């Protein structure tokens, strides 16, 4: 069964550094998403991406964040200058339309 994959599974970075989280969505899916879950809190929507552009973003997704689909398979989330409060589990998801399939997540730790 096709799955969403994410790399790395765990990333440790220092405050102020740039990180890129990578995702490979399911191949025939058209919509791509990033969510995050801070420890002990709910899963929060960050951004959705369709037809090579952002279709919706939350207030969390400020200028420090960007997404890209650099080729036909990868979908990346870049955090330009990480802050301590960016420490969270980041989930990528993809869908044909509404039913979203999630990847295993990348745990980002900012020190």
């Amino acid at each position, binding site marked *: 069964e096709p799955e*969403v994959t994410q790399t790395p599974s765990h990333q440790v970075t220092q405050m102020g550094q740039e990180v890129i989280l990578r995702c490979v969505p399911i191949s025939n899916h058209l*919509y791509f*998403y990033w*969510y995050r879950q801070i420890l002990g*809190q*709910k*899963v*929060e*929507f960050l951004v*959705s*991406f*369709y037809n090579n552009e*952002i*279709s*919706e973003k*939350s207030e969390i997704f400020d200028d420090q964040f960007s997404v890209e689909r650099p080729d036909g398979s990868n979908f990346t989330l870049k955090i330009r200058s990480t802050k301590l409060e960016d420490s969270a589990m980041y*989930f990528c*998801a993809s*869908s044909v*339309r*509404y*039913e*979203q*399939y*999630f*990847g*295993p*997540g990348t745990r980002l730790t900012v020190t």
Partner: protein
Amino acid sequence: AQSVSQHNHHVILSEAASLELGCNYSYGGTVNLFWYVQYPGQHLQLLLKYFSGDPLVKGIKGFEAEFIKSKFSFNLRKPSVQWSDTAEYFCAALMHTGGGNKLTFGTGTQLKVEL
């Protein structure tokens, strides 16, 4: 603002007990509803979904949920839980506001099933 609330944060049951986890959403328009499960160390998996039609939906592993529009609820049920159902359960809603299909999640319910 649109939101999803789950009333039970931690539930402990014995094997064979019945389960009901509450979920309410706040949005008056068209909504699609989902329950996801996250087993320890694994990713979010879709348990079941409601789009339209029969408000009683059946999912994997013997789970079902009932959509009650008048109560804005989508409660998850299982008649007899097993130890392997120990996991975190998330209710989520896709509220059709003309945006990008974002899911709004509840806070999750940690279920522990004891032998």
